[in-house]
């Protein structure tokens, strides 16, 4: 009997060659990520549990992103607590203003194919883009891992998603994952793994795969997995071992569901207020007036996303009385976009470009809205009240769709 990718990762991690979906196992954790919102809580729980040292300081990464820049006077307390915790326990991997945790973890080389990684954030599923098992947990469990280096998990059954063919112009991986979440439903993959395959996936950039892995949680998934390939190796700066290239779902592996898509069938879509699975073709929504556009987040704040927007915005202007807010996902991306002229194009078009961080997506600053306002956003959630009052309408879309909407001041098809 073959195995799914997640089964292979867990078998290798635990040294238990027979375990399969449904089994409860204890995994050895390769890396953990804690972000600024939760570090005070993790620190408290860690000490309350009676631990006096980290199981391995080198495996712990602390990232400030939700609260950068600080918007409320108590925000900086999180930095002070984080700094003190890092110093006390000898942590050296601390990023204080370098970008969003989920961008930095793969970008800075903290995650490699086959790794088992947990983070105090639901979008930790992102690292599946390089073939790592990564999932979000709460701060109490994180405190437990910091002390023990282990966590119990139930190996998730896998939903296999095959996509083959060529995506139409102006249809991006964001449209693909939104459509998939619409088809699955917001809880359609709860407790399960999503495994992606097919030549459409193979031809996608790492950044596009990240977008999909990032949003897997919006279908309830525990993790998302992509087979490591040459692009993965290049991105991670490694050459793939045999163990890594073998992270493929076997033809005779057991899947709870197999979904097959033709790339040509995808169209630009939006997740309409206020559920991520409320998916409609952009064409159906055309003409809806908007007040703001947000391009950024760990879902779609990468260089290819900014470049896509810049191509569309070049020589054009954001519609009068409409704001376009751009928040690059990391310092590295910001600098690359500076170097290749993307930033200049966006500035000239009238974008408000903020420092890399979670920005508007986490709803603390970065363009909060009010009653009756409508925003088209490239991030991952459109929940009620996430970007302001509960009378704000959030439409999730690809960077291409977002950029054309910014110019038009209303929803239009890219």
């Amino acid at each position, binding site marked *: 009997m073959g195995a799914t990718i997640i089964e292979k990762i867990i078998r290798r991690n635990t040294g238990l060659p027979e375990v399969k979906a449904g089994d*409860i196992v204890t995994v050895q954790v390769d890396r953990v990520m804690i972000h600024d*919102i*939760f570090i005070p*809580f993790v620190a408290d*729980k860690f000490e*309350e*549990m*009676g*631990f006096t040292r980290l199981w391995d300081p080198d495996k712990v990464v602390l990232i400030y992103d*939700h*609260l950068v820049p600080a918007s*409320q006077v*108590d*925000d900086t*307390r*999180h930095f002070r607590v984080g700094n003190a915790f890092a110093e006390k326990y000898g942590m050296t991997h601390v990023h204080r203003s370098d970008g969003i945790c989920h961008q930095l973890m793969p970008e800075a080389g903290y995650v490699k194919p086959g790794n088992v990684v947990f*983070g*105090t*954030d*639901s979008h*930790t599923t992102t690292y599946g883009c390089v073939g790592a098992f990564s*999932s*979000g*947990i*709460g*701060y*109490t*469990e994180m*405190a*437990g891992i910091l*002390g*023990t280096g282990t966590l*119990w998990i139930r190996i998730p059954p896998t939903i296999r998603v095959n996509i083959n063919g060529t995506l139409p112009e102006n249809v991006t991986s964001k449209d693909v994952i939104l459509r998939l979440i619409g088809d699955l439903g*917001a*809880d359609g993959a*709860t*407790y399960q793994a999503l495994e992606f395959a097919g030549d459409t996936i193979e031809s996608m950039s790492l950044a596009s795969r990240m977008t999909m892995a990032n949003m897997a949680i919006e279908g*309830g998934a*525990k993790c998302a997995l992509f087979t490591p390939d040459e692009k993965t190796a290049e991105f991670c700066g490694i050459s793939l071992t045999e163990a890594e290239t073998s992270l493929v779902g076997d033809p005779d592996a057991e899947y709870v569901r197999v979904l097959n898509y033709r790339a040509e069938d995808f169209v630009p879509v939006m997740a309409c207020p206020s*559920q991520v699975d409320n998916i409609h073709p952009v064409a159906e929504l055309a003409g809806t007036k908007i007040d703001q556009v947000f391009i950024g987040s760990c879902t779609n704040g990468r260089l290819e996303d900014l470049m896509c927007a810049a191509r569309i915005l070049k020589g054009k202007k954001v519609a009068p009385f409409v704001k376009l807010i751009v928040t690059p996902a990391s310092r590295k991306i910001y600098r690359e976009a500076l170097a290749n002229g993307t930033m200049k194009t966006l500035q000239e078009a009238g974008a408000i470009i903020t420092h890399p961080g979670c920005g508007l997506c*986490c*709803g*603390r600053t970065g363009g909060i809205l009010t009653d009756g306002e409508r925003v088209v956003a490239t991030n991952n*959630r459109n*929940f*009620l*009240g*996430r970007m302001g*009052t*509960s009378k704000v309408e959030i439409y999730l879309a690809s960077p291409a769709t977002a950029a054309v909407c910014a110019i038009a001041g209303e929803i239009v098809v890219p």
Partner: protein
Amino acid sequence: MSEKFKARVWVLGDDIDTDIIIPTEYLALKTVEDMKPYAFSPLRPELAGQILPGDIIVAGKNFGCGSSREQAPEVIKALGIRCVVAGSFARIFFRNAINNGLLLIENADLHDAVKEGDEVEVEVGVKITAGGRDFPIPSLPDNLLEILNAGGLVKAMRRRNGLE
């Protein structure tokens, strides 16, 4: 732990996400006590003030979807909610609730059979009785019961570290 109690019901819908349970705006407040008044505020701003200790929440599917914020189960527990019964729970929320000793019960049918203010009887691991009708509920796996019985993961770890 065969435990039986009666409770008043608050009814919520499907997909009650973590931004509804406790919006990001309030996540940097110092304590869960400080967050209590804002629980469920995007959906029902008055609800947090109406919940009384011992009440339970009955919701539809995918309760707790969204973020990994552990303040979500914590704030529900802090409001005195005895347990949440839902058609299904999002994964991270489920783990966080268990780790904080908040009882969760999966049942797909109860939601349509009760209305707000009803009194129901919960027999943990066995059934819920509402309006004279019994709704069977599953028991939890052993490893989760262990954590629940210890009073949450912190206590379990303290025990491991020889502190309790």
